[in-house]
C-alpha cells in the first residue's frame, strides 16, 4: 500500500508546481540583488524556471538552454507595482449616473495601449487599473501584468482581490469642474448618504433573495412564487457585503476618510485601502488601528483645495506609524518614475532605502492580495523583475530591463540597437531619394 501511495503522491504534487502559461526560463547573473523582504545580496544570481523564481543566491549555474542576462554592475529588484492607474482601458468613468458598481473595467481592456510599454520602461510589471473617481460608487477594477504584445486576457492577474471603486470629496460631488447636468449628490453629506442608501438597498436585495430561496425550499408556496429580479447593480454591492469584494476608496480629507471607515463598520465590509489620502498623516493613528492601508502620491499636491494639505512627508510619517503605504502614479506619465517618487520618501519622511523601496513593491502587492506571487524576490514567487543601472532609489537611476515571469518585455540595450538600425535604414533611404532626384 505504502509503495503505491508515494509515487501517486509525487505524481499529484507535480500537478501543483506552478507553471505559468507565458512563463519562460531565465538566469540573471552577477547583479546586486535587492530582495525587498530578505535583504540585499551584493553580487548574486536569480534563476527563473517556467516563470517562477527557483533559486536566488551566488554562483548559480545555468541549466542547459536557459537564456542568461548579465547584470554586472546593475541592481536587480522586484518588478514595480502601481496600485492605482487607468491605463490599458478604453473607458474611464461611467458618468451617466452616480452609482454604477455593476460596470467593470474588465469589459473595456485594451492590450494595445502604448502606456503599457511606457510602464515597462519604468520597471513596472503589474498595475491595478481602476474605474474613475467621478461617482460615489464607481465600478470594478482589475489587476494586470504588463505583458506587452500579449492579449488582454493573458494579462489578467486572477490571484488579486476583487475590488470596487468608491470616491469621496470634490470629484463625486462634481464641484471642481463644470457640468451641464448636475446630479445628486452635490455635497459631502450627499455622497455619504447615497453610499449608505445603496448599501441599505443591497442589504434589502440580499434579504429578498434569501427569503425567496428559503420559501422555494418549503413546500407550501413553491409554484406561484415569482423570483425577485436579478439586479446586477445590487449583486455587486451584495458581493461587497458578503466579503467577496474589497472597497478601494478615493478620498483626500481626513474627515471624509474617517466617515467612510464608519460606513464600513456600519455595514461590515472591508476596505483594502484609501486612494490618494492626502491627509492620511492626520489620522495615521486610526488607519494603523483599523489596519487600512493608503495608496498615495508622494508629492503631487495643491492641485485642488482638498489636496492643499497633502504634505510630502505623509507617506513616510504614516509608514513609521505602522500604516501600510504604497505609492501610485494615477498617470500614464508618472508611471515611468514611481521609483523616483518612492525615493523622495527618504528626504521627506526619513525612510531608509529599503523602506522606500517597499512602497512600490511588497506594500502594493499586499494591498492587492498578490503578495504570494509578487512584490519581492523570493523563491516560489513569479519572476517579475526590474533591472536598474544605479540603485533604484538614486536620482541618477534608469531602468534597463523589465522582466515578467522570466520573459524580457523591455530591454533598453535592444531598444537602442533597433533604433540605431532603423535610423541607418532611414538615412540610406534619404540618400537614395536624393540620388534619384538628381
Amino acid at each position: 500500500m505504502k509503495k503505491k501511495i508515494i509515487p501517486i503522491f509525487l505524481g499529484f504534487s507535480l500537478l501543483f508546481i506552478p507553471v505559468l502559461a507565458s512563463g519562460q526560463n531565465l538566469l540573471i547573473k552577477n547583479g546586486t540583488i535587492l530582495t525587498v523582504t530578505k535583504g540585499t545580496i551584493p553580487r548574486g544570481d536569480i534563476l527563473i524556471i517556467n516563470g517562477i523564481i527557483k533559486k536566488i543566491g551566488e554562483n548559480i549555474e545555468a541549466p542547459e538552454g536557459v537564456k542568461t542576462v548579465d547584470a554586472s554592475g546593475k541592481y536587480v529588484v522586484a518588478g514595480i507595482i502601481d496600485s492605482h492607474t487607468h491605463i490599458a482601458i478604453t473607458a474611464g468613468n461611467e458618468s451617466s449616473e452616480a452609482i454604477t458598481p455593476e460596470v467593470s473595467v474588465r469589459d473595456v481592456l485594451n492590450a494595445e495601449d502604448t502606456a503599457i510599454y511606457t510602464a515597462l520602461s519604468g520597471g513596472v510589471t503589474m498595475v491595478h487599473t481602476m474605474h474613475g473617481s467621478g461617482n460615489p460608487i464607481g465600478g470594478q477594477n482589475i489587476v494586470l501584468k504588463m505583458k506587452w504584445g500579449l492579449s488582454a486576457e493573458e494579462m489578467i492577474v486572477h490571484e488579486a482581490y476583487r475590488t470596487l471603486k468608491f470616491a469621496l470629496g470634490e470629484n463625486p460631488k462634481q464641484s471642481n469642474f463644470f457640468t451641464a447636468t448636475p446630479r445628486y449628490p452635490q455635497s459631502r453629506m450627499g455622497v455619504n448618504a447615497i453610499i449608505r442608501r445603496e448599501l441599505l438597498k443591497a442589504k434589502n436585495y440580499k434579504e429578498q433573495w434569501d427569503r425567496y430561496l428559503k420559501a422555494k425550499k418549503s413546500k407550501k408556496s413553491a409554484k406561484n412564487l415569482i423570483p425577485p429580479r436579478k439586479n446586477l447593480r445590487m449583486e455587486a454591492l451584495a458581493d461587497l457585503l458578503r466579503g467577496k469584494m474589497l472597497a478601494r476608496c478615493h478620498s483626500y480629507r481626513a474627515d471624509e476618510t474617517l466617515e467612510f471607515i464608519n460606513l464600513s463598520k456600519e455595514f461590515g465590509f472591508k476596505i483594502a485601502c484609501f486612494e490618494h489620502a492626502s491627509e492620511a498623516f492626520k489620522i495615521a493613528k486610526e488607519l494603523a488601528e483599523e489596519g487600512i492601508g493608503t495608496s498615495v502620491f508622494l508629492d503631487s499636491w495643491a492641485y485642488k483645495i482638498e489636496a492643499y494639505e497633502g504634505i510630502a512627508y505623509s507617506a513616510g510619517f504614516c509608514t513609521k506609524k505602522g500604516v501600510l503605504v504604497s505609492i501610485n502614479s494615477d498617470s500614464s506619465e508618472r508611471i515611468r518614475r514611481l521609483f523616483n517618487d518612492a525615493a523622495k520618501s527618504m528626504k521627506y519622511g526619513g525612510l531608509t532605502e529599503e523602506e522606500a523601496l517597499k512602497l512600490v513593491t511588497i506594500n502594493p502587492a499586499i494591498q492587492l492580495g498578490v503578495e504570494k506571487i509578487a512584490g519581492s524576490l523570493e523563491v516560489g514567487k513569479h519572476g517579475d523583475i526590474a533591472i536598474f543601472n544605479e540603485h533604484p532609489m538614486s536620482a541618477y537611476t534608469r531602468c534597463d530591463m523589465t522582466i515578467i515571469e522570466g520573459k524580457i518585455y523591455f530591454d533598453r540595450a535592444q531598444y537602442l540597437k533597433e533604433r540605431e538600425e532603423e535610423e541607418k535604414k532611414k538615412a540610406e533611404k534619404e540618400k537614395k531619394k536624393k540620388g534619384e532626384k538628381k
Partner: protein
Amino acid sequence: MKTKKFLVLFYFFLAFLILVSSSSTYAGSVYAIVNCKVVPVASSAIDKGVIIIRDGLIVSLGPSEKIVIPEDAEVIEAEGLIAYPGLIDAHTNLFLELPKEEPAQRQRGMAPQEKETGRYSDLTVFKLLKPKKTTIGSYHKIGVTTVLVAPKKGIFAGQSVLLNLNGEKAEAMVVKNSVALQINFTRARGVYPATVMGTMALLRQSFLDAKHYHSHKSLYASSSKGIKRPEYDPFLEALVPFILERKPIIFTCNNQEDIKRALRLIDEFKLNGFLSGANEAWRVADYLKKTPLFVSLHFKPPITSIYVNKGEELKEKAEKEIYPANASNLYKSGIRFALTSYGLTKASDYLKNIQKAIKAGLPKEEALKAVTIHPAQFLGVNNIMGSLSEGKIANVILTSGEIFEEKTRVKRIFVDGVMFKIKKPPEKVKAPALNLAGKWEGTVISPMGELDVTMELEQEENEILGTITSNFGIWEISDGILSGNDLTFTISATIMGESIDMEFSGKAEEDLIEGTFSFSSGSAEIRVTRVPTSGF
C-alpha cells in the same frame, strides 16, 4: 391656361411611353440564358451552359446539350460572358432613411439636446427603408443582388431585413424580415450607459431581464390565479425570442476587443450569436472557430489598434497592406466568413476592396464564396439563394470576364428573375471642365410644349448626381458623367407608379446646360441656367 393644357397632354404622352418602353420587366418573364460559362459556386463550373428562369426562379441549369429551351423563353445570348450567383452583401447601412440630424449644436458646457436610450429591440428596419434607385443601380453595377440592411443607431439597434434588389417597392424586395437582432457596442446619449463598460452591464442586465420577463409571463400564462400580472414591456417582449429561442443576434464589432466582448456574452447567455464588422478579426482567429463571421471590407484600423498609435508610417501601412490582408489571414486559419460593405460609403468601394483583399492574398474562389454561399448559409437562406441551382431564386449576374478582375464588368443582372441591363461606363472620360454643383432652372421643350423645371446637382470629380423638380414631382438624376464639357445623365422618372428612364446628352458651360432627352420613342430639349447664389 397654356400650362394646364400642356400638362394634360404631356401626361398622356408619357403614359404612352410607359406602355412601349422596356427598360425593366417585372416577374412573369421567362428567360433562357445561353452559351455562357456557368459558375454555380456550390457545384462545379459548366463551360458552356444554359440557365432557364421562370417566375423568378431558376427552373433548370446545365450544359447546353442537356437543357431544352422552352418556347416562351426570351433568349439572352451570353456568349463570352460568365454567369455567377448574385452577390450578397451581408451588412449595409445604406437604404435607410434616417431623420435628418441637426449637426450637434452642442455648445461647450451645455447638456446634450437629445436623450437616446439606445434600446430599440422592437424596431424592424423595414419601417425605415428608403430604397434609392441610384443606390440600387450602383449595387447592380458591381453584381450585388441581395443586401442585409441593418439598423445603425443604438445599442439594441433593431432587427435587420434581407432584401433582393429587384426594383423599387420595399415590400417586393423583402426576402426575410427580422433576420437578426443587431447589437452595437456603442453608448447611449444623455442617459446610462455613457461608456462601453456600462453598455456591457446593460446588455447583461437586459438579457437577464428578458429571461425574468419570460418566466414571469409563462408562470402567469400557466395559471394566472394569485400571480401578479406581468407589466407589458415592448423592449423585453421583442428581446425574448433572441435570448430564449436562439433567434440570431448579430454583434457589430469594430475592433478585436468588441469581438471578445461579443464572444463572452454569447458564451454567458448561450446566444445564437454572429459577429459582423470585425475588420481585425485575424488578430483573434483562435477564438473564431465556431461563430459565424461577417467581415467588413473597410481597412481603416480602429483607434484602439497598435497600428494607429505608433506613428504615421505604420498607420498608412496598416490601411494599405495589413488590414486588407484580414480576409486572407482568416482563410489561412481555416475560418469561414462572409465579406460585407459595413463601414464603406459607396457601393463601388465594396468591389474595389474585394479586389484589394484578393491582391493581399485571399484566393479568388474564397472571395466569391464569401459573397455568395457563406452569407446565405449564415443567414439561413441557402435553400433559396447563394448559388446557382434548380429551385433557387433567380439571382444571376452575367459578367464580361472572370469575376473580381480589374477589367470585368457586370453586363446583366437578374434579381428575383427581373432583368436589368447595366449601362456601359463611358470609354474615355476627360477631366470635368467645371463644377456644376448647385441650383439650375429652365425649361424642357418637347413637341407637346414647355415644362418648367429646376435641377439640383452634386458633383464629385466626373460623377454627377442630383434631382430634377417639376410639376410632376421630384425625379432622381443618376449615372451623370461630365467629361470636359460633355454631360450625360439618366433621369428615373416616376409617372403613375411606373418608372421610366430618360437619357440626357448635352453640353455644360459655366452658367448654361443644354441638350437632348431621348426615350424609346422621341426626344425633348432642355435648357437650364444657373441660379445665382446669394453672395457669400
